[in-house]
């Protein structure tokens, strides 16, 4: 059942005052259009703003030469608004036509213009910018009263008063003081330390007494860690969490204006964020066996659901999950490999894992860099690496369909062999070689000997320098899929939904990757690449912001779909996530508006990129 009155509880009408709503409601009419009828003629003066009650409308830009399909710039469906721009400009640039029988609410032009004139917030809504719309979306999706967790700062959440002890305090007294204070660490006064304090933890004290055989009376300064890992009190909680996960530490010292003001414990942060005491990060660090890692990995799914339900920003979620997944892989490598292997190899995660953009583990992409002088006989290496790949699968990283895994000898090579391979890739210019190069450029070190990874990474970026011909070829695939600006298409044939990866994520990520290569930006994360591209003046700030918003939206919509798919399949196995398709008709109006806008950003980005990198579609 539909209502004869306009629903004013939804944006943008909820921005109006009571009197304005009254005026609006009294002026609204209901208009009927047959399929194929023009609702607003191109160049015409529109009757007003339309809100679709039933049916679908298509927008055509007739100044574009080509077929009807080329001219179609947007499609609107139930709940969508159209015609606002035409009313405000007094003239329609595009033609709006009923694609199927259509019934709309119609707000007369003069009433709409008055409302826009009188209400700045309402006016702002129609100055369509993706960032503005994103704010609108947040207003809707974050439940009333719930904190936006991604905006919580340490100062306001999990700051503990520090326990401060003199350097001469005995180990026994420190243990007692810590027990009284219910805290698992103490700051030790230290004039020669950078922050005027050192740190001693419960584990340090235990090790000193039990393993090193120190006396209970030993002054604590002998076992104090002098270099503190600190964060600022105004830092976002999430960033502290990510920092702890990456450095695998359990606490950070919190500073304010150069002074130590407290400590934050990992357990406190995780409890604060998830409202549950299950400690994903801690569980990973504690794991000693593959089975324990598998348990820790499964626990991450609950974390993903909780964070998603709490409206945590997708970018923070991606970084957190990437850090946790990275630690899972690293930990498995560390418990699987003998020490000489750890010293002579560098394990790297690639692709979306390397970019920190995988939330649900849909596949594993990894490679191994082996020191040139490391003697590692085949009969030792091959079974070890095969077992590692199998173990990764068993802890929840599905097999890579493209076989980009260390068990494949092509992805486990010595440094010299890697250099030869990459040189061949850049010269060969086949599509497969370019994708291999793309995946490798997103590589991120996770375990083993980092120097090996850094050496090869430097070489690769130097090697690519100034290779414009390669660059143009490399970026080419960005243009290979059209942007589906008609969200709903022909409803029947497109019942599978919109492929968000082809339509949005791939062109954006690969386009940014190509630019990063051109401007020698070493970051692998797409957001960070965009930030540095903006800083380098390579892309305009506005485009950068729009790209970030678009990527977040695509990722958010995909995550939602992935979670639904997993729930439908009753599993946490990411390999069951079989497609990247979004059910567009199931989205609410604001998400559809955002998606439409985000796809326009992609379209413009592609056009701009084609000129910038001299590529042709």
């Amino acid at each position, binding site marked *: 059942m539909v209502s004869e009155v306009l629903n004013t509880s939804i944006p943008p009408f909820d921005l109006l005052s009571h009197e304005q709503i009254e005026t609006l409601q009294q002026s609204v009419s*209901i*208009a*009927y*259009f047959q399929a194929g009828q023009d609702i607003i003629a191109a160049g015409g003066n529109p009757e007003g703003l339309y809100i679709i009650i039933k049916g679908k409308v298509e927008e055509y830009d007739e100044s574009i030469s080509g077929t009807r399909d080329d001219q179609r710039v947007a499609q609107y469906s139930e709940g969508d608004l159209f015609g606002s721009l035409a009313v405000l400009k007094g003239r329609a640039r595009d033609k709006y036509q009923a694609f199927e*029988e259509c019934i709309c609410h*119609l707000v007369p032009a003069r009433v709409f213009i008055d409302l826009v004139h009188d209400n700045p917030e309402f006016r702002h809504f129609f100055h369509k910018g993706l960032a503005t719309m994103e704010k609108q979306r947040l207003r809707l999706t974050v439940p009333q009263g719930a904190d936006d967790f991604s905006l919580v700062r340490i100062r306001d959440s999990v700051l503990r008063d520090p326990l401060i002890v003199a350097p001469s305090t005995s180990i026994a007294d420190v243990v007692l003081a810590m027990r009284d204070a219910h805290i698992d660490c103490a700051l030790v006064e230290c004039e020669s330390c950078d922050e005027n304090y050192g740190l001693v933890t419960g584990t340090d004290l235990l090790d000193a007494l039990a393993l090193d055989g120190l006396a209970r009376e030993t002054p604590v300064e002998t076992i104090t860690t002098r270099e503190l890992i600190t964060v600022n009190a105004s830092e976002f909680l999430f960033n502290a969490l990510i920092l702890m996960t990456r450095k695998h530490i359990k606490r950070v010292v919190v500073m304010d204006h150069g002074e130590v003001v407290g400590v934050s414990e990992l357990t406190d942060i995780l409890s604060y964020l998830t409202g549950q005491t299950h400690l994903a990060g801690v569980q990973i660090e504690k794991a000693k066996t593959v089975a324990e890692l598998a348990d820790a990995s499964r626990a991450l799914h609950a974390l993903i659901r909780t964070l998603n339900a709490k409206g945590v920003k997708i970018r923070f979620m991606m970084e957190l999950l990437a850090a946790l997944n990275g630690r899972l892989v690293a930990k498995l490598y560390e418990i699987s490999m003998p020490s000489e292997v750890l010293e002579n190899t560098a394990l790297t995660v690639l692709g979306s894992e390397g970019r920190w953009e995988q939330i649900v583990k849909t596949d594993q992409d990894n490679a191994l860099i082996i020191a040139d002088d490391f003697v590692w006989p085949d009969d030792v290496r091959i079974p070890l690496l095969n077992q590692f790949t199998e173990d990764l699968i068993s802890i929840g990283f599905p097999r890579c369909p493209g076989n980009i895994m260390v068990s494949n000898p092509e992805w486990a090579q010595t440094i010299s062999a890697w250099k030869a391979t990459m040189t061949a890739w850049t010269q060969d210019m086949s599509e497969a070689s370019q994708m291999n190069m793309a995946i490798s450029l997103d590589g991120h070190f996770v375990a083993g000997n980092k120097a090996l990874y850094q050496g090869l990474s430097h070489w690769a970026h130097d090697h690519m320098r100034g290779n414009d011909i390669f660059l143009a070829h490399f970026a080419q695939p960005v243009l290979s899929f059209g942007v589906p600006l008609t969200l709903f298409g022909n409803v029947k044939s497109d019942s599978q939904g919109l492929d968000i990866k082809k339509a949005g994520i791939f062109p954006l990520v690969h386009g940014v990757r190509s630019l990063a290569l051109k401007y020698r930006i070493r970051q692998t994360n797409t957001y960070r690449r965009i930030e540095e591209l903006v800083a380098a003046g390579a892309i305009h700030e506005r485009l950068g912001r729009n790209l970030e918003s678009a990527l977040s939206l695509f990722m958010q919509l995909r995550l939602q779909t992935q979670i639904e798919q997993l729930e439908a399949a009753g599993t946490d196995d990411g390999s069951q996530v079989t497609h990247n398709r979004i059910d567009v008709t199931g989205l609410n109006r604001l998400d559809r508006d955002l998606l439409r806008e985000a796809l326009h950003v992609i379209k413009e980005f592609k056009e701009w990129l084609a000129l910038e990198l001299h590529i042709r579609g």
Partner: protein
Amino acid sequence: MLVRTLKRLADRYKHRDSAHQHLFEPYRGHEVISIDCEMTGLDVKQDEIISLAAVRIEGHQIHSGEAFEAKVDHRDRLGADSIVIHHIRKMDLEDAVPMETALMALIEFIGNRPILGYNLQFDLKFLDRYTQPLLGLSLPNRTIELADVYRQKVVSRQPDAVPHLGFEAILEDLDLPVFGRHTALGDATTVAMAYVKLMQRS
């Protein structure tokens, strides 16, 4: 219909110098008013109209925002007992106005434009019962029965068809969204929508 026509002629003569004279002027425009009444029951002699709604149709547009809608409070004529007899709930009487006020406003809203409804004669019989004692007339406007329009359109397309003329059946066949059902304004709007679609079809 013949009876109505005769009545109209008689009323017109009677009101030749009255304030309601304009209602008898022939209408020359293209607008139509869709009306609907909600009653306490189906008995034309016993039951009461509890709400009235009218909405103006202009071409493909239904002016729902400036629609007419009134709830009727009968206590002045029938006494407070009518609430019990007719099962009118208290909430039905909030913002309600006396029948005379509602009728005058409705007639003012409609003017001399044609009126549209589903099973319109039934609603008109109810209205007559109030307009005759109060104003000394029956609504003189040209009437358009949705079921007739529908039958004509169906028959003109498929001469052999025997259309179902029930309200629900018509709406289902036309595949239209149903506006707030069983409220006078909702039904008047739904009827208007069906009419607009039928008229655009030809």
